[in-house]
C-alpha cells in the first residue's frame, strides 16, 4: 500500500477538527477499553499467560526457519500448497496465478490486514477479478472506497448513520426510506447482500492469525462467520499470511486463544476459531479442492536478530491502539499506512523504511499504556525510541531540531552548568510570568504556547527542590536511595 505517513501532522490536525470522527473515537473508552478491563479482571492467570506467550514467540523467532519448514512439510503432506513471497509483488502474483488457473471471476475475502499491505483488491480488480470483502466492517469500507482505520474493527471511525447512508446509496434496489436506525437492521441487510456472493465465488481468500507447525493448520479467529463461508464454499481456499505467524503446537495455540479475544474485544472467546488443514478430504461434502498458503516476508526477516525483533511477536489484537491517547485523538487514517497506533509506529518503519515513516515513532507521548496492555509484552515505546534515534542519526530530522537536541545533550552531560542554567531560566520565567500573569509566549516553544499557556514555574527547579528535601530528610535520619 502506498503510504502517506509523512503527512501525519497535517492528517492529525484535520482529524482533530472532524466532529464525526471524534464522536466515533470517543466511544473507545466505554467500549473496547472497558470490555478488555472486565475480561482481564476475570482471569487471574492473565499475566502468567502473557509471559508464556512472550516465551513461545521468542522461541519461535530463534528458530523461525525450522518452524516454517515443519509447517510447510505438514501442508504438503496433506495435499496443500505453499507459496513463498519475498516481496509484496511476489505475493500478489502468487494469488493472481492461483485465481487465473481456475478461471476465477469473483473472490470472496475474509478480513486480512496482510492483503491491505499488498493492496490486493486493486490488483485483482485491475486483472479482471472482482474481490468481495465479506467482513461487515471491510464490506462497509469497500462500498465507501476507504481503508481500514483499525486492525480489528476496521470501520471504527464511522458512526451508525454514516453506515446507514452508505447502505442506502449502495443497496439501490431497496426502498430508500427503509428504517436503518437499529444496528441489527444494518447487520441483517449486509447478511442478505452477501449471502449469494459466498455461493458464487470461485476462490475464497482469508488471512491467518496463526500457522500451527505441528499440524500444518492455518487458524482464523473471528466473530461473524464470514471467514468460514469464504473458505468452505469455493473450490479454492487461499490463505495469505506472513512468516512470523507460525507457532509450534496446538497447546501454544490455546495460550494465544486465551489472550487474543480478551485483549482485542474483551471477549472470553470469539464466536469462531477455525483450523484449516489441507484441502477437503475425499468424502467431505464441503471444503475447498485446493488449499494454498501464501507466506510473505515483506521485510520481516530483517527484523530478526535486531534490537526491534520483538515487534514480530505482535498478535494484532489492537489493544495498543484502543488504549493510545494519540490514536484516540486522531484515529487510524492519520497514520497513513496499514498498521495504525503504537504497533504501526513500531512496525511501519521496518516495513516501508524510516525515511518514509519517521513521523510515526514521534506520534507518541511515551505514556506506556500500550506496553501495559500488550498481551505479548512488546516494548513498544523502546522500539519507537530506537526509531527516533535512527531518524536522528540518519539526519532525517530538520537541521534546526538536530542542532537543538545536540545543544541540549551537550548541556545535559554537564550537570553543574545544567543546574545553574535551568535554575536561572526558572527564576526568569517566574519573574516574567508573575508580571504578565502567565506565559503566553516562549522562545523555541511556540508549538506549545500556540495552543495553551505555559504554567509559571514556582521559582526553583526540581533538582534544587530535591536537594533541599534530601538535606531536611537527612537531618531526620531518612535516606534517599
Amino acid at each position, binding site marked *: 500500500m502506498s503510504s502517506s505517513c509523512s503527512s501525519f501532522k497535517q492528517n492529525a490536525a484535520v482529524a482533530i477538527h472532524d466532529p464525526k470522527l471524534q464522536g466515533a473515537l470517543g466511544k473507545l473508552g466505554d467500549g473496547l477499553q472497558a470490555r478488555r478491563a472486565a475480561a482481564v479482571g476475570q482471569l487471574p492467570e492473565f499475566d502468567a499467560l502473557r509471559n508464556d506467550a512472550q516465551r513461545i514467540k521468542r*522461541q519461535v523467532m530463534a528458530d523461525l526457519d525450522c518452524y516454517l519448514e515443519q509447517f510447510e512439510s505438514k501442508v504438503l503432506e496433506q495435499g496443500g500448497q505453499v507459496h513463498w513471497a519475498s516481496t509484496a509483488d511476489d505475493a500478489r502474483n502468487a494469488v493472481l496465478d492461483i485465481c487465473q488457473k481456475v478461471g476465477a471471476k469473483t473472490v470472496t475475502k475474509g478480513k486480512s490486514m496482510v492483503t491491505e499491505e499488498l493492496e490486493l483488491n486493486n490488483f485483482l480488480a485491475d486483472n479482471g477479478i472482482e474481490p468481495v470483502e465479506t467482513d461487515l466492517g471491510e464490506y*462497509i469500507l469497500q462500498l465507501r472506497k476507504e481503508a481500514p482505520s483499525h486492525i480489528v474493527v476496521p470501520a471504527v471511525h464511522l458512526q451508525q448513520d454514516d453506515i446507514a447512508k452508505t447502505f442506502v446509496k449502495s443497496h439501490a434496489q431497496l426502498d430508500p426510506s427503509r428504517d436503518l436506525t437499529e444496528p441489527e437492521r444494518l447487520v*441483517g441487510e449486509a447478511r442478505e447482500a452477501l449471502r449469494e456472493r459466498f455461493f458464487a465465488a470461485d476462490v475464497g481468500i482469508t488471512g491467518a492469525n496463526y500457522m500451527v507447525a505441528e499440524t500444518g493448520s492455518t487458524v482464523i479467529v473471528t*466473530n461473524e462467520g464470514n471467514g468460514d463461508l469464504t473458505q468452505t464454499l469455493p473450490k479454492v481456499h487461499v490463505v495469505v499470511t506472513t512468516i512470523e505467524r507460525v507457532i509450534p503446537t496446538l497447546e501454544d495455540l490455546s*495460550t494465544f486463544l486465551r489472550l487474543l479475544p480478551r485483549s482485542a474485544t474483551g471477549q472470553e472467546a470469539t464466536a469462531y476459531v477455525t483450523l484449516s488443514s489441507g484441502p477437503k478430504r475425499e468424502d*467431505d*461434502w464441503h471444503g475447498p479442492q485446493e488449499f494454498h498458503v501464501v507466506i510473505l516476508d515483506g521485510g520481516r526477516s530483517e527484523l530478526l536478530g535486531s534490537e526491534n525483533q520483538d515487534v514480530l511477536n505482535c498478535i494484532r489484537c489492537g489493544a495498543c491502539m484502543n488504549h493510545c491517547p494519540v490514536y484516540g485523538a486522531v484515529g487510524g487514517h492519520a497514520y497513513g499506512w496499514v498498521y495504525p497506533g503504537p504497533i504501526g509506529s513500531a512496525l511501519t518503519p521496518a516495513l516501508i523504511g524510516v525515511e518514509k515513516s519517521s513521523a510515526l515513532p514521534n506520534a507518541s507521548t511515551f505514556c506506556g499504556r500500550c506496553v501495559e496492555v500488550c498481551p505479548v509484552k512488546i516494548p513498544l515505546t523502546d522500539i519507537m525510541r530506537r526509531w527516533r534515534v535512527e531518524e536522528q542519526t540518519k539526519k532525517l530530522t530538520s537541521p534546526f531540531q538536530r542542532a537543538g537536541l545536540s545543544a541540549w545533550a551537550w548541556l545535559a552531560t554537564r550537570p553543574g552548568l545544567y543546574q545553574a542554567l535551568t535554575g536561572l531560566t526558572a527564576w526568569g520565567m517566574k519573574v516574567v510570568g508573575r508580571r504578565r500573569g502567565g506565559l503566553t509566549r516562549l522562545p523555541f516553544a511556540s508549538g506549545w504556547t500556540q495552543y495553551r499557556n505555559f504554567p509559571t514555574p514556582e521559582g526553583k527547579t526540581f533538582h534544587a527542590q530535591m536537594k533541599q528535601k534530601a538535606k531536611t530528610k537527612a537531618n531526620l535520619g531518612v535516606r534517599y536511595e
Partner: protein
Amino acid sequence: MSNAREKIFAAIARNKKPMQDAAEKSENLIARVEVNTIPARGNLSGVAMVEEFEKRVLASAASIEYVSSNKDVPEAIVRYLAKHQLPNVCFANGKAGQFSWSRVPELDVRTTIGNVNSPVVVTEAFRGIAETGSLVLISQPGHSSASHFLPEYLIIILPYNNILPSQESVWEDVRQRSGDIPRTVNLVTGPSRTGDIEQKMVLGAHGPRQVHLVVVK
C-alpha cells in the same frame, strides 16, 4: 517462487539469534519444552466442570438443555422448533441423520447435500470445552462443514461424556484419532456476532443467529 523461498530462508538463517537456553534441535521442535499455563477454570473435573461449561455456554448467548438418552433427541428438536415458532423442517448433518427421527413423524428431516442451506441445522459436536463453553465441530466424510455457518438456527448435540475441561484436553483427543487432523476444526462459542458498528455487539452476522445445545446424558 522457489527463488523467493531460498531468499527468505537465507535471510532468516543469517539474522536469527538462537535463544541462550534453548538446547533443542530442529528434529524435536514440537516436543514441548515447557508447559503453558492452563487457567484454574480450565482445570476442573466432574460436576464442577459441567457447571462451568453450562455457565460459559449461557454467557456466550447460546441456550442449553439436557436429555437422558439419544432416543429423546428428536422430541427435543421438535420442542425447540415449536418454541421458536419455526416450521417442522431441518437438515440433519452427517451422523445426526441417524437419530430415531421416526419417533417424530411430524418433523421433515432432510439429510441430502441439496438441503444443506436450510434455516435449521442439527449437527453433532466432537467435544465441548468447559473453560469457554465452546463446541468443537469437525469435518467428516458424508458431512457438511458449511452447514455450521449457513442456518439461522444451529442445534448442536453433545454426549455428556464429551464435555472436557479445556482446549488442551480436546487436542489430546484430536491426536488420538487415526490419520491427519480433519480438514476443518471449528470451535464455536455462541451465535455469530459483530462489533463492527460503533463497537456494539450485534448477534447474527453471517452465521447462525441462535445456537442451541442439547446435551445427552
